[in-house]
């Protein structure tokens, strides 16, 4: 099957959606399908052979964080050319409800279109004001996939209709058998956190408070933090003896992320809201690291209601302190959590996820009259009126 996938965000910036698309594309290619991904990226950037660059992205505030999006005449022309030359059986757009390359592709294409919705944000201003303008593009989508029940609920509340829930996958084998980061063997009491620690919704402040509470009675306790943010800000607020026990790795590459999990003894996800799935939990579980996580709907579901991770009250320092202490002090509990995590990680293995996505492709193409083509109506209305003679077109 010939599959065209649209990635709405900049390819080289690490993110859940980008990783999802990469893993899906590579799994489909492994199974013998033809896959082309179009993503915003500079022309001179090194890209995998299956990725087509659609031009540079501009930063836009969306859903509490900054997303880098591509939207404009040059991208429009490139998407249209990619559609014409790709001759896809199915077009798979991701997160088409944001003003992005995916939305452009929806306007530009006609035929079997599948869309995956990632975000779970109950109050997105963009979705509210944007809905009338989005409808003509979104109604072209033949099948909708949501990566979680929360994402499905968001979608249904904003646009009506329904969606099939297919959760994210994780490449279990990649997280097995890695070696720790150089010079960072776990000491039996190293707690890990990965993500933008200066973004309030990630809940790092809650973890830090729990760490401060536990550190005096546990001299071995260390905190290892990976992800972008201003480390000095955090260290300045800590007493010097505690600051020495917190290490910041900065942003880590995918390869180093795999090794990061081998450098820690417990992974903590203290998020305080707006998480639709939590791929990071699956990665920690695949790596065999016991997990302590906030009791968010999405997290509780992924972690089998506490079988695969110690759940603590959202944003509650005392609850996280107690939960973390329980896991740190009890080797039997850690072993239980590892075993539970193993079951969960295998369930979400990419091979099984890709198989379910293929089922959706097959269902939309089964009754379809033709392959994906350019939409002549939007070509005449939008492109001809707005984008005529734009530089770089064609």
């Amino acid at each position, binding site marked *: 099957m010939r599959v065209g996938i649209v990635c709405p965000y900049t390819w080289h910036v690490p993110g859940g959606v980008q990783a999802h698309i990469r893993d899906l594309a590579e799994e489909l290619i492994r199974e013998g399908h033809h896959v082309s991904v179009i993503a915003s990226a500079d022309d001179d950037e090194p890209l995998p052979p299956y990725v087509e660059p659609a031009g540079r992205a501009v930063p836009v505030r969306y859903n509490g964080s900054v997303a880098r999006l591509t939207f404009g005449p040059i991208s429009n022309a490139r998407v249209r050319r990619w559609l014409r030359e790709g001759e896809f059986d199915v077009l798979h757009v991701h997160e088409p409800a944001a003003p992005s390359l995916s939305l452009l592709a929806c306007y530009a294409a*006609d035929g*079997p279109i599948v869309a995956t919705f990632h975000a779970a944000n109950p109050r997105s201003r963009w979705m509210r004001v944007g809905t009338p303008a989005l409808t*003509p593009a979104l*109604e*072209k989508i*033949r*099948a*909708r996939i949501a990566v979680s029940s929360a994402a499905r609920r968001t979608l249904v509340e904003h646009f*009506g*209709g*329904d*969606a*099939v829930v297919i959760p994210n996958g994780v490449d279990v084998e990649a997280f097995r058998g890695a070696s720790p980061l150089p010079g960072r063997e776990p000491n039996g009491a190293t707690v890990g956190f990965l993500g933008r620690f200066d973004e309030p919704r990630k809940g790092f402040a809650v973890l830090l408070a729990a760490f401060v509470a536990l550190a005096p009675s546990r001299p071995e306790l260390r905190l290892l933090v990976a992800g972008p943010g201003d480390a000095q800000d955090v260290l300045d607020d800590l007493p010097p003896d505690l600051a020495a026990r917190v290490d910041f790795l900065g942003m880590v590459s995918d390869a180093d992320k795999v090794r990061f999990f081998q450098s820690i003894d417990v992974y903590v996800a203290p998020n305080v809201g707006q998480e639709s799935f939590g791929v990071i939990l699956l990665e920690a579980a695949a790596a065999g690291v016991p997990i302590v996580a906030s009791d968010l709907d999405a997290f509780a579901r992924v972690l089998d209601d506490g079988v695969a991770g110690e759940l603590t009250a959202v944003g509650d320092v005392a609850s996280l302190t107690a939960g973390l202490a329980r896991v740190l002090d009890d080797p039997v509990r850690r072993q239980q959590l590892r075993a539970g995590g193993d079951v969960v990680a295998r369930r979400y293995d990419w091979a099984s996820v890709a198989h379910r996505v293929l*089922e*959706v492709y097959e*269902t*939309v193409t*089964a*009754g*379809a*009259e033709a392959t994906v083509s350019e939409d002549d*109506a939007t070509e005449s*209305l939008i492109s001809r009126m707005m984008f005529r003679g734009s530089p770089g077109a064609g």
Partner: protein
Amino acid sequence: MQNLLIVLVVLVLLAMYVTWTAGRLDRQHVRVEAGRSALDAALVRRAALAEELADLVRTSGSTDDRALAAPVVAAARTARDADVEGRERAENNLTRVLRPLVNALGGSLRAADEQGSDLPAGYAAQVHALLGQLASATSRIGLARNISNGAVDHTLALRRRRLVRWLHLAGRAAAPSYFEIDDTTLADALAQVARREP
């Protein structure tokens, strides 16, 4: 003169908008057709597999299983021959008679595994394979139903628009209807049988 120009521009824009909306509506009708035919294919496949399974059980299964298989053969044939109005009822009926057969076969397969049985050689493997195919056909129905009803949703929303109603943009195309059947209870039963397999 100027007024005439404005009127002309408005008329041209309106005409473009109407044409575009008609195009959207046409595409939705195409999508409904495609969704419905994918759903049809999935339902036909389930009926065919159900009949094959029931035929196998009727000739080679245990006495108890044979009794459960007989109504499945009849229901599968009715479902395949059903017209548009009778389709949902016929498919629900097939689900209703398939469920006990699937559960019973799960039990017989397990019993044969544990204590051996006098059933013909290869029978268990055949039943097992058919149950697997039936499970995938049933999950396909859920998917196709979801997709088809999504298309109906969008089409009806568009047809309810004032512009579309006043100008009869839908033409003679009949308003599509939702297709609701109970396929999930059968999917659950099949998943349970599959889980019990070693």
